[in-house]
């Protein structure tokens, strides 16, 4: 049986690399990513699962890292925004002006990247449902929706 009593060294598989970190059993993944690993792309905001600024991928699925214990992530593949290098979603967010202040952007990109992988043929209804997970209060969701559609179209064109 796997267990963690208070505080120990644990291996996390983060962005394709194995990192050994000291984890307290009650630490959230968000706190460990930022404070132990220096991966500050996942943003702290509500810390209550409402805003989505801290979204990361766990085995490809977007999850709010403020609502996950770091110890739960042991044995799973974690991808943070730092692990998405030169991806179409990041470039398309720029091309579509899909951000303004940028604080929520890494969370949006993680969620949208996950969507493009899990639902490559997503229709408007699925995009809308997935975008409900993230809050942006300074730009509109239309540009973000455009960015997702653009990436899905690019991926579909590449497959043909």
């Amino acid at each position, binding site marked *: 049986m796997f*267990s963690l009593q208070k505080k120990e060294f644990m291996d996390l598989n983060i962005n394709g690399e194995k990192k050994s970190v000291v984890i307290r*059993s009650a630490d959230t993944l968000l706190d460990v990513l930022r404070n132990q690993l220096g991966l500050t792309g996942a943003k702290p905001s509500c810390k209550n699962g409402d805003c989505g600024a801290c979204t990361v991928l766990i085995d490809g699925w977007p999850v709010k890292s403020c609502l996950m214990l770091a110890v739960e992530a042991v044995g799973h593949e974690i991808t943070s925004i730092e692990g998405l290098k030169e991806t179409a979603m990041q470039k398309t967010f720029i091309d579509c002006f899909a951000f303004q202040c940028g604080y929520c952007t890494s969370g949006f990109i993680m969620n949208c990247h996950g969507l493009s992988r899990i639902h490559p043929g997503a229709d408007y209804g699925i995009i809308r449902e*997935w975008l409900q997970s993230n809050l942006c209060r300074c730009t509109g969701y239309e540009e973000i929706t455009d960015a997702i559609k653009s990436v899905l179209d690019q991926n579909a064109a590449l497959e043909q």
Partner: protein
Amino acid sequence: MIPFDFEYYRPDTPEEAVMLYDDLYKEGKNPLYYGGGTEIISFSRLYQLYPGAVIDIKGIPECNVLEQKNGYLVIGAALTLSQIQESNIFPLLIHCGGRVADHTIRDKITLGGNICAKIPYREAVLALLTCDADIMIQGTDGKKRVNIHEVFNQFLRINKGEFLLQVIINEKIARLPFASYKTTADGAVAYPQDKIGYPVVSGAGINKDGKLRVAVSGVCNYPVRLAEVDNALNDTGIPRFERINNAVEFFPIISDMEGSADYRTFVLKNILFDMMERLEYY
């Protein structure tokens, strides 16, 4: 940040989990079973919950099954609402569970967690109540299969140390036509969050052998299906509006910041009327 420590365990078998619970309880560690953990993390962060240990059931294979077996659907308690949604295995549960929180949180919230949560709405329960689901409970004496109506009254009433292992639904009932609704205080927020929020009324219904079965949440402080309500709605000797008026009298309808009791009653009546239309039940 959770401002206190607790021990974390991830057992491999149901037997190991209940034995561990027993040991930890005797040691005074106030253990909690842990599924998605969203509520435990949120409440612990706010000092509203102080577990000395959590027992994560996600490592137990029986809690992760999703299968059709001998005419029944078996759904493990540790499956997330998103996993169930993607499987398309139980459409009514997908509809009810699919309106809990938002998509990313549903990647974390488990079926068992939603059923056992403290939040009043617990919409996944609506599908189980209307379909007369069985639930498999693990205790120190082994497993037992019981009907949900025997153990769910406002919340899941199982013994200390027991935990929810699986949900089992008759496949024929799970495939019946259904109607499912969630009404929120629309207009308070803009696209795409306009459908996010606690429900004013959330409802689910099926038409089984010419009888309507209805379960609701949001109306009162727990998900509920009442025999009196089903009987009133199925009293076909009187007009439909009158049946609906009679049925809503049985609910202890609440008033809170999501909606007044009068407004909830109005919405509930409309939902019941629409439900009858959609299920072709006149």
